[in-house]
């Protein structure tokens, strides 16, 4: 890393060096993790609360004498919004589960010794990883039929299923990269030792390499989950009844323009409260495993 660092920063104004160093470190870490990392900390929470309170204040100031207070209004809609949030979580769980299983296969295919398998997996991984999530979501929404008929039985495919599949695709691609990155981060000497003890490739991978990968995969995987959870609101654009959609409905039912800021920062707060512990835990795990290696 030192050489890399020197090469990256030589010929740069000295005053930029601390920044360059920090950015280099972050870039290396993200490359090792296979995905951009979520660096949430408590100051973000404070900022959010401030934004929320400001929003409430503005709304309150604009409201007329007959209107109920902003907090009463929020409280009234909270059960509905909470139901929407649970739906967001359900979509995130399922998309994560499907994406992880598919991503494991794709990741192993990426290190296959068979060139067609390897190349195909590489292509699929990078295609879905670099495609915008929203575009993938629209593809799934509009390319999948709204019902299928199997042996005379018509099974409807609800929108949320399609949205889940649409979100599972980028998750799959990211998990695939996490798996590949973790496997390749295990020193080749481990392969050498296993080979010299007459383990075959499959045994080496399953008994020696992959068990060592799990620790390394956990932080980026959790990070990916937090990113996915935040992305589930994209499903509102394609008409799934999740928190964002319900917020819009609540706003149009109230028809008080001033509520916008308060409501949306309220939604943000919910997502922050859910993702913040995951992000912190990820950072802790990362630090612990970094020490152990």
């Amino acid at each position: 890393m030192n050489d890399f660092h020197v090469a990256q920063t030589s010929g740069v104004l000295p005053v930029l060096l601390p920044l360059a160093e920090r950015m280099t470190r972050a870039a290396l870490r993200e490359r090792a993790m296979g995905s951009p990392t979520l660096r949430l900390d408590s100051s973000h929470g404070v900022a959010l609360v401030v934004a929320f309170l400001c929003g409430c204040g503005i709304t309150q100031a604009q409201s007329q004498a007959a209107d109920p207070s902003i907090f009463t209004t929020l409280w009234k809609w909270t059960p509905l919004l909470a139901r929407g949030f649970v739906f967001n979580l359900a979509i995130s769980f399922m998309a994560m589960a499907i994406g992880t299983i598919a991503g494991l296969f794709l990741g192993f295919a990426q290190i296959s010794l068979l060139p067609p398998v390897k190349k195909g997996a590489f292509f699929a991984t990078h295609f879905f990883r670099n495609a915008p999530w929203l575009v993938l979501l629209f593809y799934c929404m509009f390319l999948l039929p709204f019902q299928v008929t199997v042996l005379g039985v018509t099974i409807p495919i609800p929108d949320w299923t399609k949205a889940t599949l649409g979100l599972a695709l980028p998750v799959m691609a990211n998990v695939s990269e996490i798996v590949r990155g973790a496997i390749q981060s295990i020193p080749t000497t481990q392969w050498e030792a296993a080979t010299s003890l007459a383990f075959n490739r499959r045994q080496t991978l399953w008994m020696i390499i992959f068990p060592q990968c799990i620790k390394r995969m956990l932080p980026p995987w959790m990070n990916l989950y937090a990113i996915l959870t935040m992305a589930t609101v994209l499903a509102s654009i394609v008409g799934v009844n999740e928190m964002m959609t319900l917020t819009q409905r609540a706003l149009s039912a109230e028809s008080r323009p001033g509520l916008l800021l308060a409501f949306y920062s309220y939604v943000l707060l919910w997502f922050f409260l859910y993702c913040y512990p995951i992000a912190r835990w990820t950072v802790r795990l990362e630090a612990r495993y970094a020490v152990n290696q």
Partner: protein
Amino acid sequence: MPEANSEPIVALRDVHQSFGDVEVLKGVSFGVAKGGVVCIIGPSGSGKSTLLRCINGLVPIKSGSIRVADFEVHNLRTDQEKIALRKEVSMVFQQYNLFPHKTALENVMMAPIYVLKEDPKEVRERAIALLTKVGLAAKQDTYPGELSGGQQQRVAIARSLAMRPEVMLFDEVTAALDPETVKEVLNTIRELAREGMTCILVTHEMRFARELADEVLFTDGGTIVESGRPAELFDHPRKDRTRAFLSQIL
């Protein structure tokens, strides 16, 4: 050279090997008798480690022949053939390369159970006996990360021995250790050699080589510059290159 009356268990003839355009081995030939101890010395980059890796088929060779027991190493094509060879030839590495997610005992037991498909109970007994032999019976449930370098290296030796190999290859096994722990590892190897294990060592421990080796090979630039009994080679080197190297080391 091998003992006159016995067929060498390891025989290399005119072995060539290159990485890209760089020729690392330029025609190496030698033999090791069963139970013999051969030490390979020489400056870094002279192809010593590559040579060991060629012997157990980790690295394919360009031309020449390598025979180990009944295996024509240069002709092994399928994975099964290579695996069969590696059951006979075991290797110990400079950086120990223990499996960090397994305890010392599990490290020793894994290969016999999963590769040789032996009875786990029997393997366990043998593994404990081997750890006792290298003086680490008390550490059997310890993970490699909690062992010192010397202890890790002794576990690595036990792990290799658990495969009941005919030939042991040691690749600078003491180079990464601090001087105090070098001794405990060398003692283990000494004991093995006295028990009649065929050993090929790449080493920088000249005193050890002098004491234990039946033959010492001095390599430089991918060839064997000089070989002979340790007393001859160390005390009366014939080649200038050998003399220069030894004068720097001793």
